[in-house]
């Protein structure tokens, strides 16, 4: 049985491993600093499909297939897939699952979806009902842009607080046992809304949720930031990252040394003209499944706290003047198995 720590954290009792991962990214991401850690680099935004929605779905499907293959398994070995994306009704995930033939739960956690999927997959395995699970998430700049913002050819100007949606999909195969890296803890986040209305400042809108989950994690586990080699948030970007460092400091946690944000890592912010950094489900998904997974495998990292951060708004809620609610889910990835393992 898993152990409940405090109010929001669960310490897993079994050793649940990420057996292997796969990532598919777009052109801008392959030109970024994390490029060496990605598996499939698309040559264009279409990847041979008629619509970008189809492309995104294909990205999920190919990432899932490759992750399963790299794990030495077939689709039949996977008990369940937990997948999500940003599009209305999660069509990228549903349409990809249509072809995978794996039992499927569709998730919506905005840009935190990958970590939500890893959390639920790990907990399902820990509960004993499943042996192998798949977590998948994706985002595509072009599909997100037309759903949330303006047509691509519209001549608008992005403010400096705006972020760039990552074109990327990632999948991870989780299994009971295995040789790690292990998911040892899951901290489920609350929806936190400090009333930020500006859609173009997602970092500012989501930072309070990240801080809330971080504080909950540290207080539930009795750990502190120094216990981790790396603390990584999803897509707070340059602005959100600064806020987290400052506000965690005033909460008595020093995050100056070992804290990164994948929105700041995936692009060369200055050269690639992405304003405040990357965002989207794909951001934390490809960073975790590409870069972080490799670092853990190579022993360059041993213990990492990964937070997926999401903004739970819709175009309708924004038009109706609602503020932007944020959410953050955290998992601990460690080379040392959790529980009795």
């Amino acid at each position, binding site marked *: 049985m898993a152990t409940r720590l405090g109010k929001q954290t669960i310490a897993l009792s079994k050793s649940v491993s990420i057996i292997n991962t796969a990532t598919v990214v777009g052109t801008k991401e392959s030109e970024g600093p994390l490029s060496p850690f990605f598996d499939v680099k698309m040559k264009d935004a279409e990847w041979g499909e*008629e*619509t970008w929605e189809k492309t995104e779905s294909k990205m999920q499907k190919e990432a899932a297939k490759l992750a399963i293959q790299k794990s030495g398994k077939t689709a039949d070995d996977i008990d369940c897939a937990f997948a999500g994306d940003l599009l209305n009704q999660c069509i990228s995930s549903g349409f990809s699952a249509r072809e995978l033939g794996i039992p499927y739960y569709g998730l919506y956690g905005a840009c935190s979806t990958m970590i939500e999927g890893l959390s639920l997959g790990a907990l399902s395995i820990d509960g004993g009902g499943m042996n192998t699970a798949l977590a998948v998430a994706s985002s595509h700049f072009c599909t997100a842009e*037309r759903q949330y913002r*303006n*047509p*691509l*050819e*519209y*001549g*608008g*100007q*992005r*403010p*400096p*607080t705006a972020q760039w949606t990552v074109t990327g999909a990632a999948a991870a195969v989780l299994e009971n046992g295995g040789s790690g890296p292990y998911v040892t803890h899951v901290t489920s986040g609350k929806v936190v809304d*400090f*009333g*930020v209305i500006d859609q173009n*400042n997602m970092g*500012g809108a989501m*930072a*309070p949720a990240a801080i809330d989950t971080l504080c909950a994690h540290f207080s539930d586990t009795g750990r502190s930031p120094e216990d981790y080699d790396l603390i990584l948030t999803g897509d707070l970007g340059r*602005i959100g990252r*600064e*806020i987290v460092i400052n506000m965690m400091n005033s909460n008595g946690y020093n995050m100056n040394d070992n804290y990164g944000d994948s929105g700041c890592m995936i692009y060369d912010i200055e050269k690639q003209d992405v304003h*405040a950094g990357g965002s989207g489900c794909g951001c934390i998904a490809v960073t975790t499944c590409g870069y972080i997974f490799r670092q853990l495998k190579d022993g360059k990292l041993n213990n990492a706290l990964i937070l997926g951060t999401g903004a739970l708004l819709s175009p309708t809620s924004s038009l109706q003047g609602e503020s932007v609610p944020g959410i953050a889910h955290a998992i601990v990835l460690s080379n040392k198995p959790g529980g009795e393992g």
Partner: protein
Amino acid sequence: MPENKNKDYLNYIDKTAPKSPMLKNVLLAFLIGGLICVIGQLIGDFYQKICGLDTDSMRTAVSVTMVFLGALLTGLDLYPKIAKHAGAGTIVPITGFANSITSPAMEFKREGLVLGMSAKMFVVAGPVLVYGISSSVVVGIIYFLYKVLIGG
């Protein structure tokens, strides 16, 4: 909900968020917006002096031509590239109006020529027509009453 804490936070992010480079933006909007108007003037002079159109027809012809150029540059993916630097300099001229109609038409073509392209055409520019035409009716009513009552 802790109201004060939120207010503090909103003030805090307002202060820390990087501001748009105003001076540069305004200068570029001025230069490029001005330049587009000069092009309009050039086309107008051509229509008036070479083609011999009267002033009213010339103005309409300039609008039509500028709209065409805006739409074409949008199709060629050049308009958004200029707009990234020009900001309001490319939004405010009538070429920007053309861009705001052409860009959703292109974008939503994949959802069909009727319910996609045509239905979404005015998703950005629609309000300009609604408010423009409505204001013209209001102006018309006032002008009509003015004539009837004061006898202009």
